[in-house]
């Protein structure tokens, strides 16, 4: 058993840091995948045909109720063995798919809450002005539905960032993986894993503060100067 050694810390630090690019890259890739795929769930759920609705709801529930680690293992180890549709994917792609799909179900719910939050009258006004279905979504509904969800979406980015180390289990060489290999090689885990913890803290904490600010800003949106103008406006 060794004690804390700054020498080891100094030696391990650049090695662990090598994994940072992968960890960040994977986080961003998974997040973008989840953001885009989330829309897919949201729109599927809006199809006004009951059986499809049930299936989609059930599939989403299934994905959310199974641990992301199991999904990751399934995609990486089991999927290649599935007849016909099975393909072998590299660890990075598997991780994007596994974590991306898992989180897209949550992101889809966030979008849904945003869309449900748009007043029914907005849909009717858009219809009365004869917008096409596509214009209704892009010009009227989504610009109102998405901004209030930005803080929630930001929270998911941080949550996801903290789940990304799961990918080290299938060999994606992020910071946790690098620390682990270093530990296995020199039989000293304390310093490299401390480095991992510090790196996560350094990146998560400022993001959390940023999102908090964003949330306050969003809450003020649309009702700026309202008090001032409602009194002034009545006389115009």
């Amino acid at each position: 058993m060794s004690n804390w050694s700054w020498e080891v810390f100094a030696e391990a630090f650049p090695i662990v840091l090598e994994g940072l690019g992968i960890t960040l890259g994977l986080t961003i890739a998974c997040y973008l995948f989840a953001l885009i795929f989330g829309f897919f769930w949201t729109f599927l759920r809006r199809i006004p045909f009951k059986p499809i609705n049930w299936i989609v709801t059930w599939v989403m529930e299934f994905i959310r109720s199974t641990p992301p680690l199991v999904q990751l293992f399934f995609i990486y180890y089991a999927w290649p063995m599935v007849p016909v549709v099975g393909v072998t994917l590299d660890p990075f792609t598997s991780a994007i798919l596994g974590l991306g799909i898992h989180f897209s179900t949550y992101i889809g719910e966030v979008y849904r809450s945003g869309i449900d939050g748009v007043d029914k009258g907005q849909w009717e006004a858009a219809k009365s002005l004869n917008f096409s279905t596509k214009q209704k979504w892009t010009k009227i509904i989504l610009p109102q539905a998405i901004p209030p969800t930005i803080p929630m979406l930001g929270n998911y980015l941080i949550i996801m960032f903290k789940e990304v180390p799961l990918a080290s289990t299938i060999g994606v060489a992020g910071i946790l993986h690098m620390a682990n290999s270093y530990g296995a090689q020199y039989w000293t885990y304390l310093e490299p894993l401390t480095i991992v913890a510090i790196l996560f803290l350094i990146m998560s904490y400022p993001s959390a503060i940023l999102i908090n600010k964003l949330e306050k800003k969003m809450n003020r949106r649309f009702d700026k100067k309202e008090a001032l103008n409602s009194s002034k406006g009545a006389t115009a």
Partner: protein
Amino acid sequence: MTEPIVTFNDVHKSFGDVKVLKGIDLDIRPAEKVAIIGPSGSGKTTIIRMLMTLEQPTSGDIIVDGTNLWKMDKKGKQVTANEKHLRAVRGDIGMVFQHFNLFPHMTILENCMTAPIHVKQESKSSAKDRSIEMLKKVGLGDKLDNYPSQLSGGQKQRVAMARALVMRPKVMLFDEVTSALDPELVGEVLEVIRDIAKDGEMAMILVTHEMDFALDVADKVLFLDEGVIAEQGTASEVIEHSKNDRLQSFLHRFRN
């Protein structure tokens, strides 16, 4: 006599088991101003919402400028209209809502410009010019860059009218447009509607509780009661000289 711009033929509407409209027959001629009055729950709003394609009739036909609104031909058979058909006919109709329904993420100028640009593919400059002209007409030329949340209820409703007018509808629908306003703001909105009515050309259907206003503006008044048109005629015939008991008691409640 000119051809009607809007015709209702035996139109029924139920919500679940509740029959709201039980056979509406109605002709509205170009430039005609029609007020629909009646107790709440009598189906007034449903009539114009069907015309705006916000509700689908249970049975019957609504004809807009010679085209069946809710039905179309498909291989020689008459079927329920799809969105494409509805969209083609809907362009003739505009609507002002009780709760304004302005787009909160746009300035009031953008509220007016967006539909001409995106729906009618007008150039940005002509859409802008006409929107400014309309907003001036409703007395809001100095508020172009304000957001709806910065306006009073009466101002919002005037923007909503400008927004609908910019689309140059042949028929304009007003759904209890003063009901959500504070009493002192009702006047400014009615004044604008009077102005619009004077311009002529456009047919107007007003669902309203403002009897004096209906008497003043409308060529024709319909009294809707329990899902049917119980009484119709010129404003003075219906509001001042009707023998219908239920209409009398309805009016009495407003006039005491």
